[in-house]
């Protein structure tokens, strides 16, 4: 039965893309980053920015808590 304590939270994150994470592993890595805030219900990469040699990923997500 559904609990009244179920909540939704929108988050926007900017995270550095580690060099050792290939594109083929990015989805799983991103899910791990989001899990610290709650179960990801809906998420996407909305931008990729370069800060020198470091790629930064912008994420927008809705998390369940």
């Amino acid at each position, binding site marked *: *039965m*559904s*609990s*009244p*304590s*179920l*909540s*939704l939270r*929108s988050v*926007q994150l900017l995270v550095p893309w580690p060099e050792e994470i290939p*594109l*083929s*592993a*990015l*989805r799983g890595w*991103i899910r791990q980053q989001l899990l610290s805030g709650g179960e990801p*219900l*809906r*998420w*996407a*990469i*909305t*931008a*990729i920015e370069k800060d020198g040699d470091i*790629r930064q990923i*912008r994420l*927008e997500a*809705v998390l369940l808590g």
Partner: protein
Amino acid sequence: MSAAPLPTLMLVPTGIGCEIGGYAGDAMPAARLLAAASGCLITHPNVMNGASLYWSDTRIQYVEGYGLDRFAAAEWFLRPVRRQRIGLLLDAGIEPELGQRQIQVAQGCRASLGLDIGPVIHTDAPLQVTLALGASGASTGSLGRPDALLRAGERLRDAGATAIAVVARFPDDPASGALAAYRQGAGVDGLAGAEAVISHLLVRHLRLPCAHAPALDPLPLDPQLDSRAAAEELGYTFLACVLVGLSRAPDLIDHGNPQPGDLTADSLAAVVAPEGALGGEAVLACLERHVPLIAVANQSVLQVTPEALELRAKLLMAASYTDAAGLLVALREGINPEALRRPLAGLQILT
């Protein structure tokens, strides 16, 4: 076409203002074309929902976005069906007359289309939908009472529904600049993000095909209405397309072994997505599994391109959905797409 169907995933993310597909089911012509080219198209409600307008094609599998993500990640598989029994879930926050309009659509779909619909339930509390935009300009949103949504869904499932059409009351803002822009064929569908959250919640919780239609007051006539937004202003509801789509939506299977006829991630032969919107979970899951990606020119508010991702895997660029359809036919017939372009690269010679 003699070649066997080529199971293809077609993605047009909702709420990012895609030039094709960012409005009222305006990606349907493209979906029809890709379904003809592939013989088996798996796509999501944003592509196929045109409010009062819809298209039913046995080659098209209607799968809600959360289910699509799980399918692409090989966590779930799809079992085509002849018919679903669609429970209708209405937000207690819908005014009685507007609620009756939704029920009349359901009645019409039963009588005139032969759809299996019922029962109907109202949530035990108003869902309290709110809308927002992310920093990217993409649409998002939330619910004040997700528990009420899920309780109602559970009751429909327990009463025998095998799919759920949900109608939530959305805030009216007829004077908003964003709505005016949308009606003129610009900007982002501000409702889309919250709609996705609602249907994602139900699919995640119930493992049933689900789709959402907003309940809104009708808008005054706009003589300058963009054609792509017109389908949403033909009637009192957005529900008919959802009922038609769900009527043959495949079952979502998260356990056991696939049966003959089931669609699994292993069977996916291509994914078609807008060139600048490659950062969603389903696309990334397909890239993990080396599914050939056809990136179509289809402008949106996002710029997550192959270059941004430094994508080096097998990638096919399409200038249009017509081009994409041609690429699908080539793949389906076993023709190397490189042979269709000039200049033709030389043979690789190993030393």
